[in-house]
């Protein structure tokens, strides 16, 4: 059994046994390559009433290598309007890049993103959104983001 499979089954068991944090729900985890989770910000927030969908993609090196995480954008789902989220669903967050640590998990990522949305006070697109979206690779991990803003 590969490391990523064993690790993900463990995470799955944990979710089944202990449930997910408030506002986070597992939508699909049929295989060990791609999971979908829903994300909702509760309390006082600019995203009141909005539900988002996160897509996780894992390679065989997970959790040594970070998962590819993005918001789903299709007919049903929209990405949140946030200065760190591009309209194609790509997310600029250090935790998904150079600050990824193998001890983090799917749920830990969701919780971090949830709090990233929760601390946002004003819905704004990232600067240079159009240009980025035009040229962005399919996999957000192929983009080298710069992380500079700890406020939202």
């Amino acid at each position, binding site marked *: 059994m590969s490391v990523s499979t064993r690790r993900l089954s463990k995470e799955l068991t944990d979710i089944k046994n202990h449930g997910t944090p408030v506002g986070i729900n597992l939508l699909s985890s049929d295989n060990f390559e791609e999971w979908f989770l829903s994300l909702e910000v509760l309390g006082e927030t600019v995203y009141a009433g909005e539900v988002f969908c996160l897509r996780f993609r894992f390679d065989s090196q997970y959790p040594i290598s970070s998962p590819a995480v993005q918001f789903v954008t299709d007919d049903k789902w929209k990405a949140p309007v946030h200065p760190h989220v591009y309209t194609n669903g790509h997310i600029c967050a250090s935790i998904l890049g150079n600050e990824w640590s193998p001890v983090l998990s799917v749920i830990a990522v969701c919780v971090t993103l949830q709090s990233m949305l929760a601390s946002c006070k004003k819905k704004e697109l990232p600067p240079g959104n159009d240009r980025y979206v035009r040229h962005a690779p399919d996999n957000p991990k192929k983009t080298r*983001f*710069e992380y*500079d803003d700890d406020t939202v």
Partner: protein
Amino acid sequence: MSSADEYSDDDVGYYDEDDDEMAIDDDGSASEMELDPLGDFNEGTSKKKVYEVDYESLSQAEVEKQMKGDVDYITSIFGVTPDVASLLLRHFDWNKEKLIEKYMDNTTTVSVAAGIMPPEKAPRRPAASGGRLHSSSESTKESLIGPRRSSRRIASAATKSGKSKILDRVAPPAQDEPAVCLICFDDTQTDFLSLVCDHRFCKTCWAAYIESKVKTEAESWITCMAEDCDVVATNEFVKEALAEDKQTWERFHELLVRHYVSHRPELKYCPYPGCTYTASCSITKASLATQVPIVACGNSATHKFCFGCNVDGDHRPVVCSVAKMWLQKCHDDSETANWIKSNTKECSKCQSTIEKNGGCNHMTCKKCKYEFCWVCMGPWSEHGTSWYNCNRFDEKASKDARDAQSRSRASLERYLHYYNRWANHEQSKKLSVELYAKTEKKMEEMQMTSELSWIEVQFMKKAVDEVIKCRTTLMWTYGMAYYLDSSNEKELFEDNQRDLERAVEDLSELIESPLDPEVIKTLRQKVTDRTVYVTKRNEIMLEDTARGFLEGRWKWNLPVVGLD
């Protein structure tokens, strides 16, 4: 001699000293001529020519020795293990003086920043508080914090039990409690490792993690896998974790050496693919305005490159800044270069070319870690809290850019004059492979049709060598002439250029003309003479230009960075 005399009529002044030089040349060896002390021609006593610089070529092993010397130096001063010394040096980009100053100033802060110990007495995880582990970590701290007063004692203690301090091989928790690695959740693991921070993970995970860092990120600064833990893996730890994976270990080692070389201003890797040599040259940035530091690595004499800029190969006699301007100009014509121009910028500190493919304007150079703003290229520190937007946009700069554009259109014609000649020599140079093949055939033919030996027909190859060398000089003289302001100096420059060009074309024609067995002897004489003459003209061109730079004789028709 006869052919050379024809030329010498043009420039008696230069040729006076030449006759005895040429008399030596009995065996037709043109390149031996270069070894002759033409340096006497310069008034200096050193044999070095005015257009040459002092440098040394180092093999990989020699660089490693130098690096080890630095590590040993720090080891002996601070009384730490070589591994700790190595981390400290790496953290300070191999700046020994700065390290010593800061370390003496505040050992704890430096140790934390260099990743050799956790920020404070970090709260231990309950599972990790086994007796042996605890005490060994304690002693690590002691050796890190207090080496100043009692370095000798600590040093000896460190060597005795250095391994167990740096590298805690932790036995799995006792008895019935199963050992589960928090990363892979494999409960059969027995081999656990942790850094001084006591974050324990199984050896398999460590190995996979280090391999991914080393191989996919080319990173040698390997922090602990735990979240927000900044403790860094020592060399010994990496070696231990990688165990049988020799390939990754070697790559890791190579990354360390690369890190060292890239942070020593006097060292530069040979840019030729697969070459492992390093050149050591202590030229200052200021002297790049007057000197062209062309160096060759010990691996092969063809591995010539400029120590001052990223242009590979020889760009003498033109100094780096002008050469760079010229290349930039030439490249602007091609689509690829247009793309580079519109999509990339250079780090204003280390000149690495950077493409921005997403994210915000806060850039951090991957190579030198310089932080700057993509919009105004100024240092990021001046931007304060205006995170994404640069309001420092310079109106004047944009206007200047527009003006420059219209000027360049008007002067396109003038540019093409120089460019075509540049490109022509470049093209001829590119055909050199064919020319060498053709010449070799000719040499074989000569051997068969005359009584000359293989050694004796080498004059042909030497002539080709010389032609190619001179074409490089000629190429760059066109680049330089483009930027020279009209003056008497420029006319003299162009006279020298014309003489060299004529000599090169004559020789070139001669070596490419069909062979007539009847006159091989005469041909040999002619080629040999002309090779000598061409060598001489090249010397004059290079030397006079280099001298001009030293004397500040060249006047430019537009401002050149670093030359004013």
